[in-house]
Protein backbone atom coordinates (compact mmCIF):
# COMPACT_ATOMS: atom_id res chain seq x y z
CA UNK A 1 0.00 0.00 0.00
CA UNK A 2 1.27 3.45 -0.92
CA UNK A 3 0.30 6.57 1.01
CA UNK A 4 0.53 10.00 -0.57
CA UNK A 5 -1.38 13.21 -1.03
CA UNK A 6 -0.71 16.33 -3.05
CA UNK A 7 -0.71 18.47 0.11
CA UNK A 8 2.64 16.97 1.14
CA UNK A 9 4.07 19.63 -1.15
CA UNK A 10 2.81 22.36 1.15
CA UNK A 11 5.82 21.55 3.34
CA UNK A 12 7.94 24.12 1.56
CA UNK A 13 10.68 26.29 3.03
CA UNK A 14 11.02 28.35 -0.14
CA UNK A 15 12.57 28.04 -3.59
CA UNK A 16 16.24 27.96 -2.52
CA UNK A 17 15.84 25.47 0.29
CA UNK A 18 17.25 21.97 -0.27
CA UNK A 19 14.25 20.17 1.28
CA UNK A 20 12.26 20.83 -1.86
CA UNK A 21 8.74 19.64 -2.67
CA UNK A 22 9.89 19.50 -6.29
CA UNK A 23 11.33 16.09 -5.42
CA UNK A 24 7.85 14.70 -4.83
CA UNK A 25 6.50 16.31 -7.96
CA UNK A 26 9.35 14.80 -10.02
CA UNK A 27 8.98 11.40 -8.37
CA UNK A 28 5.25 11.04 -8.83
CA UNK A 29 5.40 12.32 -12.40
CA UNK A 30 8.20 9.86 -13.17
CA UNK A 31 6.19 6.94 -11.79
CA UNK A 32 3.23 8.07 -13.87
CA UNK A 33 5.37 8.39 -16.99
CA UNK A 34 6.69 4.87 -16.38
CA UNK A 35 3.11 3.63 -16.16
CA UNK A 36 3.52 2.08 -12.69
CA UNK A 37 1.69 4.68 -10.61
CA UNK A 38 -1.32 3.26 -8.81
CA UNK A 39 -3.76 5.51 -6.99
CA UNK A 40 -2.33 5.94 -3.48
CA UNK A 41 -4.24 6.09 -0.23
CA UNK A 42 -4.82 9.70 0.77
CA UNK A 43 -4.24 10.06 4.53
CA UNK A 44 -5.91 12.52 6.90
CA UNK A 45 -3.67 15.10 8.52
CA UNK A 46 -2.56 14.39 12.06
CA UNK A 47 -4.38 16.23 14.82
CA UNK A 48 -2.70 18.55 17.33
CA UNK A 49 -3.34 15.89 19.96
CA UNK A 50 -1.46 13.26 17.94
CA UNK A 51 1.53 15.57 17.50
CA UNK A 52 1.56 16.05 21.28
CA UNK A 53 2.21 12.33 21.75
CA UNK A 54 5.89 13.06 21.11
CA UNK A 55 6.26 16.87 21.22
CA UNK A 56 5.98 19.50 23.92
CA UNK A 57 2.99 21.80 24.08
CA UNK A 58 5.27 24.83 24.04
CA UNK A 59 6.94 23.75 20.77
CA UNK A 60 3.58 23.14 19.11
CA UNK A 61 2.28 26.53 20.31
CA UNK A 62 5.25 28.24 18.71
CA UNK A 63 4.87 26.39 15.41
CA UNK A 64 1.18 27.34 15.34
CA UNK A 65 1.95 30.98 16.07
CA UNK A 66 4.70 31.08 13.44
CA UNK A 67 2.25 29.57 10.95
CA UNK A 68 0.01 32.59 11.50
CA UNK A 69 2.94 34.94 11.07
CA UNK A 70 3.36 35.68 14.79
CA UNK A 71 7.04 35.41 15.60
CA UNK A 72 7.94 34.97 19.26
CA UNK A 73 11.42 36.21 20.21
CA UNK A 74 12.49 32.80 21.56
CA UNK A 75 11.79 30.98 18.26
CA UNK A 76 15.44 30.13 17.65
CA UNK A 77 15.60 28.44 21.03
CA UNK A 78 13.03 26.01 19.62
CA UNK A 79 15.02 25.48 16.43
CA UNK A 80 12.64 27.59 14.35
CA UNK A 81 13.28 30.59 12.14
CA UNK A 82 16.85 29.45 11.51
CA UNK A 83 18.57 29.20 8.13
CA UNK A 84 17.82 25.45 8.07
CA UNK A 85 14.29 25.49 9.44
CA UNK A 86 12.76 28.86 8.55
CA UNK A 87 9.11 29.48 9.31
CA UNK A 88 6.47 29.85 6.61
CA UNK A 89 2.74 30.51 6.57
CA UNK A 90 0.75 27.34 7.16
CA UNK A 91 3.79 25.49 8.51
CA UNK A 92 1.88 23.75 11.31
CA UNK A 93 -0.69 22.20 8.99
CA UNK A 94 1.90 21.31 6.33
CA UNK A 95 3.91 19.42 8.95
CA UNK A 96 0.78 17.74 10.33
CA UNK A 97 -0.14 16.54 6.83
CA UNK A 98 3.19 14.69 6.63
CA UNK A 99 2.78 13.31 10.16
CA UNK A 100 -0.70 12.16 9.19
CA UNK A 101 0.68 10.11 6.31
CA UNK A 102 3.16 8.18 8.41
CA UNK A 103 0.62 7.77 11.21
CA UNK A 104 -1.89 6.41 8.71
CA UNK A 105 0.77 3.89 7.71
CA UNK A 106 1.02 2.78 11.34
CA UNK A 107 -2.78 2.48 11.58
CA UNK A 108 -2.89 0.36 8.43
CA UNK A 109 -0.22 -1.95 9.79
CA UNK A 110 -2.20 -2.37 13.02
CA UNK A 111 -5.24 -3.16 10.85
CA UNK A 112 -3.37 -6.01 9.18
CA UNK A 113 -1.61 -4.40 6.22
CA UNK A 114 1.93 -5.75 5.86
CA UNK A 115 3.83 -3.38 3.60
CA UNK A 116 3.29 0.35 3.56
CA UNK A 117 5.25 2.94 1.58
CA UNK A 118 4.68 6.52 2.70
CA UNK A 119 5.91 8.81 -0.09
CA UNK A 120 6.90 11.62 2.24
CA UNK A 121 7.87 12.28 5.82
CA UNK A 122 10.96 10.85 7.46
CA UNK A 123 11.52 14.03 9.51
CA UNK A 124 13.94 12.33 11.87
CA UNK A 125 15.70 15.39 13.35
CA UNK A 126 12.63 16.89 15.07
CA UNK A 127 12.99 16.48 18.83
CA UNK A 128 10.60 16.59 21.76
CA UNK A 129 11.15 20.26 22.40
CA UNK A 130 12.81 21.48 19.25
CA UNK A 131 12.52 21.62 15.49
CA UNK A 132 15.84 20.88 13.81
CA UNK A 133 17.48 20.25 10.46
CA UNK A 134 14.48 20.87 8.12
CA UNK A 135 12.21 18.88 10.48
CA UNK A 136 9.31 20.52 12.32
CA UNK A 137 7.34 17.55 13.69
CA UNK A 138 8.62 14.00 13.94
CA UNK A 139 6.22 11.87 11.87
CA UNK A 140 8.27 8.72 12.50
CA UNK A 141 8.04 8.98 16.28
CA UNK A 142 4.30 9.71 16.21
CA UNK A 143 3.79 6.54 14.14
CA UNK A 144 6.14 4.51 16.33
CA UNK A 145 4.35 5.68 19.48
CA UNK A 146 0.99 4.71 18.00
CA UNK A 147 2.26 1.19 17.40
CA UNK A 148 4.03 0.74 20.77
CA UNK A 149 0.86 1.90 22.55
CA UNK A 150 -0.94 -0.90 20.75
CA UNK A 151 1.64 -3.31 22.20
CA UNK A 152 3.96 -3.71 19.20
CA UNK A 153 7.74 -3.89 19.38
CA UNK A 154 9.12 -1.54 16.75
CA UNK A 155 12.52 -1.67 15.06
CA UNK A 156 13.45 1.62 13.41
CA UNK A 157 16.12 1.49 10.70
CA UNK A 158 17.49 4.82 9.46
CA UNK A 159 19.64 4.85 6.30
CA UNK A 160 19.57 8.63 5.86
CA UNK A 161 23.14 9.96 5.66
CA UNK A 162 22.51 12.07 8.78
CA UNK A 163 22.08 10.59 12.25
CA UNK A 164 18.44 9.93 13.19
CA UNK A 165 18.86 11.95 16.38
CA UNK A 166 15.26 13.06 16.93
CA UNK A 167 13.84 9.53 16.82
CA UNK A 168 16.68 8.24 18.96
CA UNK A 169 16.27 10.83 21.73
CA UNK A 170 12.46 10.64 21.80
CA UNK A 171 12.59 6.86 22.39
CA UNK A 172 15.92 6.79 24.22
CA UNK A 173 14.56 5.14 27.36
CA UNK A 174 11.99 2.85 25.73
CA UNK A 175 12.69 -0.87 25.71
CA UNK A 176 10.09 -1.66 23.06
CA UNK A 177 11.75 0.55 20.42
CA UNK A 178 15.00 -0.46 18.74
CA UNK A 179 16.59 2.41 16.83
CA UNK A 180 19.34 1.64 14.39
CA UNK A 181 20.97 4.43 12.45
CA UNK A 182 23.71 4.09 9.85
CA UNK A 183 25.06 7.49 8.96
CA UNK A 184 28.11 9.47 8.02
CA UNK A 185 30.09 10.15 11.20
CA UNK A 186 28.92 13.15 13.20
CA UNK A 187 32.50 14.18 13.85
CA UNK A 188 31.96 16.73 11.12
CA UNK A 189 28.48 16.28 9.73
CA UNK A 190 25.20 17.57 11.16
CA UNK A 191 23.81 16.91 13.76
CA UNK A 192 27.08 15.82 15.39
CA UNK A 193 25.55 12.95 17.36
CA UNK A 194 25.16 9.24 16.59
CA UNK A 195 28.25 7.95 18.32
CA UNK A 196 28.55 4.22 19.07
CA UNK A 197 28.44 5.08 22.77
CA UNK A 198 24.87 6.38 22.56
CA UNK A 199 23.20 3.07 23.38
CA UNK A 200 20.07 4.07 25.31
CA UNK A 201 19.19 4.45 28.97
CA UNK A 202 16.98 2.63 31.46
CA UNK A 203 14.70 0.16 29.70
CA UNK A 204 16.14 1.40 26.38
CA UNK A 205 19.73 0.45 27.26
CA UNK A 206 21.34 -1.50 24.44
CA UNK A 207 18.41 -0.84 22.15
CA UNK A 208 19.68 2.34 20.50
CA UNK A 209 22.33 1.46 17.93
CA UNK A 210 24.50 3.85 15.96
CA UNK A 211 26.95 2.97 13.24
CA UNK A 212 28.84 6.15 12.31
CA UNK A 213 30.62 5.56 9.01
CA UNK A 214 33.66 7.21 7.49
CA UNK A 215 33.22 9.87 4.83
CA UNK A 216 33.75 8.26 1.36
CA UNK A 217 32.49 4.88 2.58
CA UNK A 218 31.08 3.68 -0.81
CA UNK A 219 28.80 0.75 -1.68
CA UNK A 220 30.92 -2.23 -0.79
CA UNK A 221 31.87 -1.28 2.76
CA UNK A 222 28.38 0.07 3.50
CA UNK A 223 26.71 -3.16 2.41
CA UNK A 224 29.25 -5.23 4.31
CA UNK A 225 28.55 -3.57 7.68
CA UNK A 226 24.82 -3.22 6.99
CA UNK A 227 24.48 -6.96 6.36
CA UNK A 228 26.53 -7.78 9.43
CA UNK A 229 24.66 -5.47 11.78
CA UNK A 230 21.00 -5.19 10.81
CA UNK A 231 19.91 -8.87 10.75
CA UNK A 232 21.95 -9.51 13.89
CA UNK A 233 20.16 -6.72 15.78
CA UNK A 234 16.72 -7.59 14.43
CA UNK A 235 17.12 -11.25 15.30
CA UNK A 236 18.05 -10.34 18.86
CA UNK A 237 15.31 -7.73 19.30
CA UNK A 238 12.43 -9.72 17.71
CA UNK A 239 10.35 -6.76 16.47
CA UNK A 240 6.74 -6.90 15.31
CA UNK A 241 7.30 -4.28 12.66
CA UNK A 242 10.10 -2.40 10.88
CA UNK A 243 9.95 1.34 10.33
CA UNK A 244 12.46 2.45 7.70
CA UNK A 245 13.60 6.01 7.09
CA UNK A 246 14.82 5.77 3.50
CA UNK A 247 16.76 9.01 3.10
CA UNK A 248 18.49 9.20 -0.29
CA UNK A 249 21.26 11.58 0.73
CA UNK A 250 23.96 8.93 1.13
CA UNK A 251 24.11 9.00 -2.69
CA UNK A 252 27.36 10.23 -4.22
CA UNK A 253 25.66 13.14 -5.98
CA UNK A 254 24.23 14.52 -2.75
CA UNK A 255 25.43 18.08 -2.13
CA UNK A 256 25.30 17.87 1.67
CA UNK A 257 27.24 14.71 2.50
CA UNK A 258 30.01 12.33 1.41
CA UNK A 259 29.04 8.70 1.90
CA UNK A 260 29.13 7.98 -1.86
CA UNK A 261 26.53 5.24 -2.33
CA UNK A 262 25.27 4.47 -5.82
CA UNK A 263 21.79 3.40 -6.87
CA UNK A 264 23.10 -0.19 -6.98
CA UNK A 265 23.69 -0.14 -3.24
CA UNK A 266 20.23 1.37 -2.71
CA UNK A 267 18.57 -1.34 -4.75
CA UNK A 268 20.34 -3.98 -2.66
CA UNK A 269 19.44 -2.17 0.59
CA UNK A 270 15.75 -2.03 -0.29
CA UNK A 271 15.69 -5.73 -1.23
CA UNK A 272 17.52 -6.64 1.97
CA UNK A 273 15.15 -4.57 4.12
CA UNK A 274 12.15 -6.37 2.62
CA UNK A 275 13.87 -9.71 3.26
CA UNK A 276 14.64 -8.73 6.85
CA UNK A 277 11.03 -7.65 7.38
CA UNK A 278 9.94 -11.13 6.24
CA UNK A 279 12.52 -12.93 8.33
CA UNK A 280 12.32 -10.94 11.56
CA UNK A 281 9.17 -8.80 11.67
CA UNK A 282 6.37 -10.96 10.29
CA UNK A 283 6.70 -9.18 6.94
CA UNK A 284 5.46 -5.90 8.42
CA UNK A 285 7.33 -2.81 7.25
CA UNK A 286 6.59 0.90 6.95
CA UNK A 287 8.88 2.92 4.67
CA UNK A 288 9.10 6.69 4.65
CA UNK A 289 11.26 9.02 2.56
CA UNK A 290 13.72 11.41 4.20
CA UNK A 291 16.70 13.51 3.18
CA UNK A 292 17.94 13.59 -0.42
CA UNK A 293 19.11 16.89 -1.84
CA UNK A 294 20.24 16.01 -5.33
CA UNK A 295 16.99 16.03 -7.31
CA UNK A 296 18.54 13.76 -9.93
CA UNK A 297 19.68 11.15 -7.40
CA UNK A 298 16.87 11.27 -4.84
CA UNK A 299 14.13 10.82 -7.42
CA UNK A 300 15.85 7.80 -8.97
CA UNK A 301 16.58 6.25 -5.55
CA UNK A 302 12.96 6.58 -4.50
CA UNK A 303 11.68 5.34 -7.87
CA UNK A 304 13.85 2.29 -7.21
CA UNK A 305 12.29 1.93 -3.79
CA UNK A 306 8.81 2.09 -5.35
CA UNK A 307 9.67 -0.61 -7.89
CA UNK A 308 11.38 -2.94 -5.42
CA UNK A 309 8.53 -2.39 -2.93
CA UNK A 310 5.97 -3.51 -5.52
CA UNK A 311 8.16 -6.27 -6.96
CA UNK A 312 8.12 -4.57 -10.36
CA UNK A 313 10.79 -5.15 -13.04
CA UNK A 314 13.21 -2.22 -13.16
CA UNK A 315 13.18 -0.03 -16.24
CA UNK A 316 16.58 0.77 -17.63
CA UNK A 317 16.03 4.14 -19.29
CA UNK A 318 13.79 6.87 -17.99
CA UNK A 319 10.98 8.07 -20.31
CA UNK A 320 12.22 10.64 -22.84
CA UNK A 321 9.24 12.91 -22.41
CA UNK A 322 9.69 13.05 -18.68
CA UNK A 323 13.42 13.71 -19.04
CA UNK A 324 13.00 16.54 -21.51
CA UNK A 325 10.24 18.18 -19.48
CA UNK A 326 12.29 18.20 -16.30
CA UNK A 327 15.59 19.04 -17.95
CA UNK A 328 13.91 22.08 -19.45
CA UNK A 329 12.33 23.02 -16.13
CA UNK A 330 15.51 22.58 -14.08
CA UNK A 331 17.79 23.91 -16.79
CA UNK A 332 20.30 21.07 -16.44
CA UNK A 333 20.81 17.54 -17.71
CA UNK A 334 19.53 14.52 -15.77
CA UNK A 335 20.84 10.98 -15.60
CA UNK A 336 18.83 9.21 -18.34
CA UNK A 337 18.89 5.78 -16.69
CA UNK A 338 17.34 4.56 -13.44
CA UNK A 339 20.73 3.29 -12.24
CA UNK A 340 23.85 5.41 -12.09
CA UNK A 341 26.35 4.97 -14.89
CA UNK A 342 29.30 2.69 -14.04
CA UNK A 343 32.41 4.42 -12.71
CA UNK A 344 30.56 7.67 -12.20
CA UNK A 345 33.09 9.20 -9.84
CA UNK A 346 36.87 8.93 -9.49
CA UNK A 347 38.40 6.12 -7.47
CA UNK A 348 38.84 6.83 -3.75
CA UNK A 349 42.46 6.11 -2.83
CA UNK A 350 41.84 5.31 0.84
CA UNK A 351 39.20 2.66 0.17
CA UNK A 352 40.82 -0.17 2.16
CA UNK A 353 41.59 2.00 5.15
CA UNK A 354 38.00 3.28 5.19
CA UNK A 355 36.56 -0.24 5.03
CA UNK A 356 38.82 -1.28 7.89
CA UNK A 357 37.74 1.62 10.09
CA UNK A 358 34.08 0.87 9.41
CA UNK A 359 34.64 -2.76 10.42
CA UNK A 360 36.26 -1.59 13.66
CA UNK A 361 33.35 0.73 14.42
CA UNK A 362 30.93 -2.13 13.82
CA UNK A 363 32.92 -4.33 16.18
CA UNK A 364 32.93 -1.65 18.88
CA UNK A 365 29.19 -1.17 18.54
CA UNK A 366 28.32 -4.85 18.74
CA UNK A 367 30.58 -5.33 21.75
CA UNK A 368 28.88 -2.43 23.50
CA UNK A 369 25.28 -3.46 22.91
CA UNK A 370 25.58 -7.27 22.88
CA UNK A 371 25.41 -7.65 26.69
CA UNK A 372 22.10 -5.77 26.72
CA UNK A 373 20.56 -6.88 23.45
CA UNK A 374 21.27 -10.61 23.59
CA UNK A 375 19.46 -12.05 26.57
Amino acid at each position, binding site marked *: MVIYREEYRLYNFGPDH*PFSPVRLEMLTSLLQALGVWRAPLSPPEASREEVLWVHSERLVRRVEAASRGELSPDL*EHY*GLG*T*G*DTPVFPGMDRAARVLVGGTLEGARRILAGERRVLQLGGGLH*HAQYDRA*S*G*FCVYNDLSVAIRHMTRAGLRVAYVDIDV*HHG*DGVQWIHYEEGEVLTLSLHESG*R*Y*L*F*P*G*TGHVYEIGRGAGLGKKLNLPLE*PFTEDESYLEVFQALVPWALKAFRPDVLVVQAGADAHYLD*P*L*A*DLLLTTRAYERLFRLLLEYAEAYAGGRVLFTLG*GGYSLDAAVRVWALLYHVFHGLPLPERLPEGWLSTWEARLGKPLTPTLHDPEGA*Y*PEIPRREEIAKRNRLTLQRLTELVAPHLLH
Partner: protein
Amino acid sequence: MLVRDVMKGPVLTVGPEVTLEDAYGLLLEKGIRHLPVVAEGRLVGIITDRDIRLATSHLNPKGPCPGCTRVEEVMTREVVTAHPLDPVEEAARVMRERKIGCLPVLEDGALVGIVTGIDLLDALLRLTGVTEPSGRLEVRLPDRVGELARLTGFLAGRGVNIHSLLSYPEEGEFVRAVVRVNTLETHPLAEALRREGFDVLWPPKKPW
Protein backbone atom coordinates in the same frame (compact mmCIF):
# COMPACT_ATOMS: atom_id res chain seq x y z
CA MET B 1 34.25 30.19 31.34
CA LEU B 2 35.29 30.46 34.98
CA VAL B 3 36.05 27.89 37.64
CA ARG B 4 32.79 28.73 39.41
CA ASP B 5 30.89 27.68 36.25
CA VAL B 6 32.32 24.16 36.27
CA MET B 7 33.21 23.43 39.90
CA LYS B 8 31.14 21.10 42.06
CA GLY B 9 29.89 22.02 45.53
CA PRO B 10 29.18 21.59 48.38
CA VAL B 11 32.28 19.50 48.85
CA LEU B 12 32.51 16.30 50.80
CA THR B 13 35.38 16.60 53.32
CA VAL B 14 36.93 14.63 56.17
CA GLY B 15 38.74 15.59 59.35
CA PRO B 16 42.44 14.74 59.81
CA GLU B 17 41.70 12.20 62.52
CA VAL B 18 39.41 10.04 60.37
CA THR B 19 40.72 6.51 59.78
CA LEU B 20 42.04 5.56 56.35
CA GLU B 21 39.48 2.77 56.27
CA ASP B 22 36.58 5.16 56.82
CA ALA B 23 37.95 7.66 54.30
CA TYR B 24 38.37 4.92 51.69
CA GLY B 25 34.87 3.64 52.37
CA LEU B 26 33.51 7.16 51.80
CA LEU B 27 35.38 7.50 48.48
CA LEU B 28 34.02 4.18 47.25
CA GLU B 29 30.49 4.87 48.41
CA LYS B 30 30.32 8.31 46.75
CA GLY B 31 32.24 7.25 43.64
CA ILE B 32 34.81 10.04 43.99
CA ARG B 33 38.57 10.15 44.11
CA HIS B 34 39.49 13.22 46.18
CA LEU B 35 38.73 14.30 49.74
CA PRO B 36 39.82 17.70 51.01
CA VAL B 37 40.80 17.52 54.68
CA VAL B 38 39.33 20.27 56.87
CA ALA B 39 40.14 21.10 60.49
CA GLU B 40 38.40 23.93 62.36
CA GLY B 41 36.90 25.23 59.15
CA ARG B 42 40.28 25.48 57.43
CA LEU B 43 41.66 23.40 54.56
CA VAL B 44 44.68 21.55 55.93
CA GLY B 45 45.28 18.85 53.35
CA ILE B 46 43.92 16.60 50.64
CA ILE B 47 43.81 12.83 50.29
CA THR B 48 43.06 10.68 47.27
CA ASP B 49 42.04 7.07 46.83
CA ARG B 50 45.49 6.42 45.42
CA ASP B 51 47.21 7.91 48.49
CA ILE B 52 45.30 5.46 50.66
CA ARG B 53 45.96 2.46 48.45
CA LEU B 54 49.67 3.25 48.28
CA ALA B 55 49.93 3.79 52.02
CA THR B 56 48.36 0.47 52.78
CA SER B 57 49.77 -1.69 49.98
CA HIS B 58 52.53 -4.25 50.09
CA LEU B 59 53.14 -3.31 46.48
CA ASN B 60 54.39 0.10 47.59
CA PRO B 61 58.14 0.04 46.86
CA LYS B 62 58.72 1.57 50.30
CA GLY B 63 56.39 -0.98 51.89
CA PRO B 64 53.12 -0.11 53.60
CA CYS B 65 53.40 2.94 55.78
CA PRO B 66 54.04 1.41 59.22
CA GLY B 67 51.33 2.33 61.65
CA CYS B 68 49.56 4.69 59.23
CA THR B 69 45.93 4.56 60.23
CA ARG B 70 44.67 8.12 60.05
CA VAL B 71 44.18 10.60 57.22
CA GLU B 72 46.59 13.20 58.63
CA GLU B 73 49.46 10.71 58.42
CA VAL B 74 49.06 10.24 54.68
CA MET B 75 47.44 13.40 53.29
CA THR B 76 49.20 15.97 51.13
CA ARG B 77 49.61 19.09 53.23
CA GLU B 78 50.54 21.72 50.68
CA VAL B 79 47.34 21.88 48.70
CA VAL B 80 47.19 23.67 45.35
CA THR B 81 43.89 25.54 45.15
CA ALA B 82 41.87 27.69 42.77
CA HIS B 83 39.60 30.72 43.14
CA PRO B 84 36.03 30.73 41.77
CA LEU B 85 36.89 33.58 39.42
CA ASP B 86 39.93 31.86 37.87
CA PRO B 87 39.41 31.07 34.18
CA VAL B 88 39.03 27.33 33.50
CA GLU B 89 42.09 27.30 31.27
CA GLU B 90 44.14 28.55 34.24
CA ALA B 91 42.85 25.64 36.35
CA ALA B 92 43.65 23.23 33.50
CA ARG B 93 47.17 24.60 33.17
CA VAL B 94 47.90 24.27 36.89
CA MET B 95 46.55 20.73 37.05
CA ARG B 96 48.50 19.72 33.95
CA GLU B 97 51.79 21.26 35.11
CA ARG B 98 51.59 19.89 38.65
CA LYS B 99 50.17 16.55 37.45
CA ILE B 100 47.32 16.68 39.90
CA GLY B 101 43.73 15.52 39.49
CA CYS B 102 41.77 18.24 41.27
CA LEU B 103 41.81 21.71 42.78
CA PRO B 104 39.85 22.62 45.90
CA VAL B 105 38.27 26.04 45.33
CA LEU B 106 38.72 28.59 48.09
CA GLU B 107 37.00 31.93 48.57
CA ASP B 108 38.06 34.10 51.53
CA GLY B 109 39.72 31.04 53.02
CA ALA B 110 36.52 28.96 52.90
CA LEU B 111 36.18 25.82 50.81
CA VAL B 112 33.37 26.54 48.34
CA GLY B 113 33.89 23.88 45.68
CA ILE B 114 36.18 21.46 43.91
CA VAL B 115 37.16 21.17 40.27
CA THR B 116 38.44 17.86 38.85
CA GLY B 117 39.73 16.63 35.52
CA ILE B 118 36.24 15.37 34.74
CA ASP B 119 34.79 18.87 35.23
CA LEU B 120 37.38 20.20 32.80
CA LEU B 121 36.36 17.58 30.23
CA ASP B 122 32.76 18.71 30.66
CA ALA B 123 33.96 22.26 30.12
CA LEU B 124 35.74 21.19 26.93
CA LEU B 125 32.57 19.55 25.63
CA ARG B 126 30.61 22.72 26.29
CA LEU B 127 33.30 24.87 24.70
CA THR B 128 33.22 22.79 21.51
CA GLY B 129 29.44 23.10 21.24
CA VAL B 130 28.94 19.39 20.44
CA THR B 131 25.89 19.26 22.66
CA GLU B 132 23.87 21.28 20.09
CA PRO B 133 22.70 19.75 16.78
CA SER B 134 25.25 21.20 14.42
CA GLY B 135 27.76 20.64 11.64
CA ARG B 136 31.48 21.32 11.86
CA LEU B 137 33.69 23.50 9.72
CA GLU B 138 37.47 23.65 9.95
CA VAL B 139 39.17 26.66 8.40
CA ARG B 140 42.83 27.69 8.29
CA LEU B 141 43.24 31.43 8.63
CA PRO B 142 46.28 33.68 8.34
CA ASP B 143 47.29 34.76 11.86
CA ARG B 144 46.52 38.45 11.49
CA VAL B 145 44.00 41.11 12.40
CA GLY B 146 40.50 40.79 11.02
CA GLU B 147 40.62 37.25 9.60
CA LEU B 148 38.27 35.76 12.18
CA ALA B 149 35.93 38.71 11.73
CA ARG B 150 35.92 38.04 8.00
CA LEU B 151 34.94 34.41 8.66
CA THR B 152 32.21 35.12 11.20
CA GLY B 153 30.93 38.03 9.13
CA PHE B 154 30.58 35.74 6.15
CA LEU B 155 28.64 33.19 8.20
CA ALA B 156 26.40 35.90 9.63
CA GLY B 157 25.71 37.14 6.12
CA ARG B 158 24.45 33.69 5.18
CA GLY B 159 22.13 33.58 8.21
CA VAL B 160 24.15 30.85 9.90
CA ASN B 161 24.26 30.80 13.69
CA ILE B 162 27.54 29.81 15.33
CA HIS B 163 27.14 27.48 18.33
CA SER B 164 30.81 27.51 19.15
CA LEU B 165 34.09 28.72 17.76
CA LEU B 166 37.47 27.42 18.86
CA SER B 167 40.69 28.68 17.43
CA TYR B 168 44.26 27.71 18.09
CA PRO B 169 47.64 28.68 16.72
CA GLU B 170 49.18 26.49 14.03
CA GLU B 171 52.73 26.43 12.78
CA GLY B 172 53.68 28.84 10.05
CA GLU B 173 51.67 31.88 11.12
CA PHE B 174 48.27 30.34 10.76
CA VAL B 175 45.32 29.95 13.08
CA ARG B 176 43.00 26.96 12.89
CA ALA B 177 39.35 27.81 13.48
CA VAL B 178 36.88 25.05 14.35
CA VAL B 179 33.31 26.25 14.06
CA ARG B 180 30.10 24.43 14.96
CA VAL B 181 27.24 25.87 12.93
CA ASN B 182 23.51 25.19 13.14
CA THR B 183 23.10 23.98 9.60
CA LEU B 184 22.95 20.77 7.59
CA GLU B 185 24.41 22.69 4.72
CA THR B 186 28.09 22.64 5.69
CA HIS B 187 29.08 21.53 2.17
CA PRO B 188 27.48 24.40 0.27
CA LEU B 189 28.81 26.68 3.01
CA ALA B 190 32.34 25.31 2.54
CA GLU B 191 32.09 25.84 -1.22
CA ALA B 192 30.94 29.42 -0.72
CA LEU B 193 33.82 30.02 1.71
CA ARG B 194 36.29 28.62 -0.81
CA ARG B 195 34.94 30.96 -3.44
CA GLU B 196 35.64 33.80 -1.00
CA GLY B 197 39.26 32.62 -0.75
CA PHE B 198 39.10 30.80 2.60
CA ASP B 199 41.24 27.69 3.10
CA VAL B 200 38.54 25.22 4.23
CA LEU B 201 40.05 21.98 5.57
CA TRP B 202 36.72 20.28 6.29
CA PRO B 203 34.35 19.35 4.76
CA PRO B 204 36.57 18.40 1.83
CA LYS B 205 36.01 19.37 -1.75
CA LYS B 206 34.53 16.52 -3.75
CA PRO B 207 36.63 15.73 -6.80
CA TRP B 208 33.61 15.89 -9.15
